[in-house]
């Protein structure tokens, strides 16, 4: 069989190399637009959506809320992944933040303004301390532990009846209206993407990447990698514990579902689809995974089949993730150029 030969695909970088290391050399408005355009569009879309309550209905506003939550958990997953730690238990962070704020709010009456930041920090410290002993484990071994820990905590709460046991803690202080709530979580998500990206441009962040590439040489450079991994876990835990604490006040309830597997699986799926390593990919991934899952509810029992197929198509078709694909399409022209026929 002979496919219409005679052409091959050629990729050309766009002529704009606006950023060379640390000099900004922007020549025209068009180039500025080229650079900030995508970012602006993304942020604008996120800022406008909460205002469209009358069009989208409260249901989709809630979906956006869950999406941002999963995006925060996905960002957390991506940071851990950048240090070479594969987490199968993002629910640990989520649950830690959720229960911390539930306890502070119900027991001491702390308002969410205090309780959420405190729970974010406490939850992150708690998770880091819990994972510290297993940080020397690698790959799937670390993953398995993180997978087991949320379930373990769930059973402990169930058995000892602490923190409300199976009933959970309800009647927590609600957040202000949905629009402000959405703006807060969107802002936190964007700050997190930006913060993580900046972190990885520093020499300190470079050590994280180095640990993933070759931890032996990082030790040989005089770093205590156990300590560095702990710092990575803490930094990664922050958005995730925040998400847990924030959603808890949104629902005014915390209970065993805070450690549910969804909070572990969806973030991982998001990063795999969006593409690891860029943080923006993790966020984009969440914006596909969660709304898709909601949209497919209308398909009843076929939902999970279609969902799996779509994920499969993404993973096989775009192994590097959606973000890398989009970036390449955006940065390069593609055109077909004729090639000389070698054989008849």
């Amino acid at each position, binding site marked *: 069989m002979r496919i219409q030969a005679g052409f091959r695909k050629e990729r050309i970088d766009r002529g704009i190399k606006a950023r060379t290391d640390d000099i900004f050399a922007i020549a025209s408005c068009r180039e500025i637009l080229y650079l900030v355009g995508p970012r602006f569009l993304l942020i604008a879309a996120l800022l406008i959506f909460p205002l469209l309550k009358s069009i989208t209905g409260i249901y989709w506003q809630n979906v956006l809320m869950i999406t941002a939550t999963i995006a925060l958990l996905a960002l957390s997953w991506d940071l851990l992944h950048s240090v070479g730690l594969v987490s199968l238990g993002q629910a640990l962070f989520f649950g830690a933040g959720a229960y911390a704020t539930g306890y502070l709010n119900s027991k001491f009456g702390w308002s969410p303004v205090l309780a959420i930041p405190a729970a974010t920090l406490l939850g992150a410290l708690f998770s880091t301390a819990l994972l510290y002993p297993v940080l020397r484990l690698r790959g799937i071994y670390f993953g398995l532990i993180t997978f087991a820990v949320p379930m373990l905590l769930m059973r402990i709460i169930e058995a000892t009846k602490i923190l409300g046991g199976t009933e959970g803690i309800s009647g927590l202080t609600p957040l202000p209206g949905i629009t402000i709530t959405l703006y807060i979580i969107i802002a936190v998500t964007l700050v997190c993407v930006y913060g993580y990206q900046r972190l990885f441009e520093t*020499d300190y962040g*470079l050590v994280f*990447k180095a640990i*993933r590439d*070759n931890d032996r*040489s990082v030790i*040989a450079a005089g770093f*205590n990698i156990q300590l560095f991994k702990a710092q990575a876990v803490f930094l990664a835990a922050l958005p995730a514990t925040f998400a847990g604490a924030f959603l808890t006040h949104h629902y005014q309830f915390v209970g065993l579902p805070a450690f549910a597997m969804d909070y572990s699986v969806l973030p991982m799926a998001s990063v795999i689809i969006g593409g690891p390593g860029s943080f923006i990919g993790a966020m984009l991934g969440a914006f596909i995974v969660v709304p898709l899952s909601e949209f497919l509810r209308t398909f009843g029992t076929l939902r999970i089949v279609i969902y799996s197929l779509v994920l499969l198509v993404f993973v096989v078709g775009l192994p590097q993730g959606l973000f890398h694909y989009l970036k390449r399409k955006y940065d390069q022209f593609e055109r077909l150029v004729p090639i000389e026929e070698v054989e008849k």
Partner: protein
Amino acid sequence: MSQDTIIKVAGLSKNFGGVKAVNGVSFELKRGEALGIIGPNGSGKSTMINLITGFVKPSSGKVFYNGRDITGLSPDKIVNLGIARSFQMAKPFYNMPVYKNLIIPLFSPRARKLAGGRHGDRDESAIHLLEEVGFERDSHIPYKPAGSLPHGYVKRLELARCLALEPDVIILDELFSGMSMSEVAGILPFLERLRDEGKTLIMVEHRLRELFRVVDKAICLNFGEKIAEGAPEEVVQNEEVKKSYLGSEVVSGA
């Protein structure tokens, strides 16, 4: 232990299961000396290095550095005391540009402390170090992903990684293996200069001719035991060394 002894190894042993990888080895090294460790494959040379640098904990025996017992200290602590090492199977940080590989040691606790807060431009220091070990400054190589480096360059990057730590002792595990003749010839004068500047060197090598241009003392290991020690020319004349390592081949030292 005399005043200027920098490294002292006393009765060091390591068993891996039933294998005695290193068996009761002792030696001393004075500040500014260069020691060569030779011996057949599997004789325990790399394990010896791992024991000194803390990457492997000894089954028995002790390691002293500047008179201080460092046995059992974690490897990162030992590096920060001033003992840098390279690996036989050198691996770069694949996903970074070559020069960024050196930011890691330049940013290490030791390097930062020595720089005393004003570290200047680490990128510039990295390029400078690469130049010293023979990377062409104006080429594009320092900016390429380290994963694409040819093996000889990886080994030189490994040496640069050690130098970035401004160590007092440099331990090199088979630096020359995987390098071409001309690459070895290129790096030799640099190693000689390090020695002449008073750095303490320990080198594991199979290329004896080149090794003996740098070191002024050698030991030979066989099945984990030290079978000879002394001036390089004496060591290669030792009957047991000839029998176990050099075979019938006659090697003349430098």
